[in-house]
């Protein structure tokens, strides 16, 4: 009754909530964050698209299109013919290995700490989450202090004959960067999986137990499918983040260190914003290529996920 009343606006006091008013007010309120995106997101994208087809290097106004020289796909082809860029693509894709490692360790830890009878489970949960609230600058540089020439761990490893532990050794770079990524990112997976596991239906697991399913079967056929959405979420967001990562790389190494092993795709384009290599048109072109790669990978994941969902149905 009350609901109907308010719908028909019979109450004179509730004129403030007329249909038309709700439509405008709701829309205007809801749209503010999108407005922010249009101003601070769409404008840059337009500028980026235009500038990626020009020989714009950084001097002069980017809006002065009358005096802009369009060079077609020249910048794109320069990026695509650059050996350093392709090495960077490889590095970025290798860096995506962080995601499955984070997910695997996150799931293992979450399964262990979700055992309610385990003493000190909250302590462990908090412990694994601490690196997640630490800044990337602090966590990377602490490890650098330990691993660089003369650092505590470096001395230790040299003593036992592991001379390859060297920030300048290209073979050491990727394992180290992946380790650092997993070290700081695993807490997020732990939290997400712990939440998912507490939400799983215990009844189904009990039923599976009675049917004689062993632990492994319980996990594989009951628990794992029920946490699939979180797995997918972690996979997609993780891959998006790791494909575009570069702060970790720029903090531990630099552009020229270890034969360019530290250069990721995002690092490559950032390099062309730097004063000595300034070429903003090229940086725009490179950022479009990077964005397209990321979007293709993301859409592929969604398609594969949809298809798998169909087959399991």
């Amino acid at each position: 009754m009350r609901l109907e009343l308010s719908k028909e606006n019979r109450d004179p006091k509730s004129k403030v909530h007329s249909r038309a008013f709700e439509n405008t007010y709701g829309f205007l309120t809801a749209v503010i964050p999108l407005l922010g995106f249009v101003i601070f997101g769409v404008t840059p994208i337009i500028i980026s698209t235009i500038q990626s087809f020009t020989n714009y290097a950084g001097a002069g106004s980017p809006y002065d299109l009358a005096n802009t020289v369009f060079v077609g796909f020249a910048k794109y082809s320069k990026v695509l013919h650059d050996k350093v860029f392709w090495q960077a693509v490889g590095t970025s894709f290798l860096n995506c290995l962080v995601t499955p490692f984070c997910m695997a360790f996150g799931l293992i830890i979450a399964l262990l700490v979700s055992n309610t009878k385990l003493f000190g489970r909250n302590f462990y949960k908090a412990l694994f989450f601490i690196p997640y609230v630490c800044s990337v600058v602090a966590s990377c540089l602490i490890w650098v202090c330990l691993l660089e020439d003369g650092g505590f761990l470096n001395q230790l490893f040299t003593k036992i004959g592991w001379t390859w532990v060297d920030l300048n050794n290209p073979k050491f770079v990727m394992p180290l960067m992946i380790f650092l990524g997993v070290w700081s990112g695993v807490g997020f997976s732990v939290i997400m999986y712990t939440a998912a596991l507490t939400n799983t239906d215990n009844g189904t697991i009990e039923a599976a137990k009675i049917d004689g399913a062993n632990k492994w079967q319980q996990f594989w056929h009951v628990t794992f499918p029920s946490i699939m959405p979180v797995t997918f979420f972690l996979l997609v967001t993780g891959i998006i983040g790791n494909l575009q990562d570069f702060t970790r790389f720029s903090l531990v190494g630099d552009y020229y260190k270890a034969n360019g092993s530290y250069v990721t795709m995002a690092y490559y384009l950032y390099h062309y914003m730097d004063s000595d290599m300034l070429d903003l048109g090229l940086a725009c072109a490179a950022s479009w290529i990077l964005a397209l790669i990321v979007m293709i990978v993301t859409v592929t994941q969604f398609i594969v996920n949809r298809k798998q969902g169909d087959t399991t149905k």
Partner: protein
Amino acid sequence: MRVEYIKRDVARKTFNTNKKEILFSRIVSYVVLTFLGLIVIFPFVMMIISSLTVGGSYAVGKGEFSFIGYKDIFTSVVAIDTNTDVPYLVTGLKNTLLITVPSTLLGLFVSAFSAYAFAKIKFKGRNVVFFIMLLTMMIPGSLFFVPSFIIYSHLDLVDTFFPLIVPGSFGSAMCVFFLRQAFMAIPDDYIEAAKLDGIGHFRIFWKIVVPLSAPALISQGLLGFVGGYNDYLGPLLYLHDPKRYTLQIALQLIHTQSSTGDNQMFLAATVVSLLPTILIFLFAQKYFIKGLTNSGIK
């Protein structure tokens, strides 16, 4: 009844093996968790030990114990902006708070009000607008940073806090998404009752929805604050004047400037810079975890 009987039967049969199994799995759990936990905590322990050792991480076990590193942050030449005589860490902390606090609060407020509209106002095109907002989250962030830099540098906004405060104050799609989920849990009856009393949306939002979903708001606020506090890329792109450096940039600067062979002062600075976030996390742990798990991804 029958299920209970079968359960008991199964329990009896497997009782002995269960006891051993449980003990064994408990031991394995502790071994695995402790081993992984040690890897996580090791660098922090080393950081604290090194920051108290003369010579830093190069001299652990050999160097003398000393608090000098913590004193050096405020006195050493490499840690002080020579133009203003203010330690980088102090300038950094001040600037970080000047940027992070307003942008987090404003952003949270805008996101929350927008989330309220999505959750509780039935306006035309609600689903379309929400879908578009979700789509914007899929656009890779690296597409923005070159052109944004171009625009800001031509508007003379580089070396101001504008690029770091204003865009964030419009809220974020992710935050709207999380908060909408929290607001939808509030019964519609409350809103309808308030509407009948002639109360406007803003007051409904402020007096009813905000108090009822305080935990969700606090958790989003904390995550936003920590994100801003730890941000490195933004200040790196837009702040080049030492007077405007944020804490993370200051930390990186102290690292590059401190002499090779002694990183005691740098590690002391790192300890100081990490204290606020780790303390906030330890005291507000449940909010952090709630903020991430209230996502509705089940």
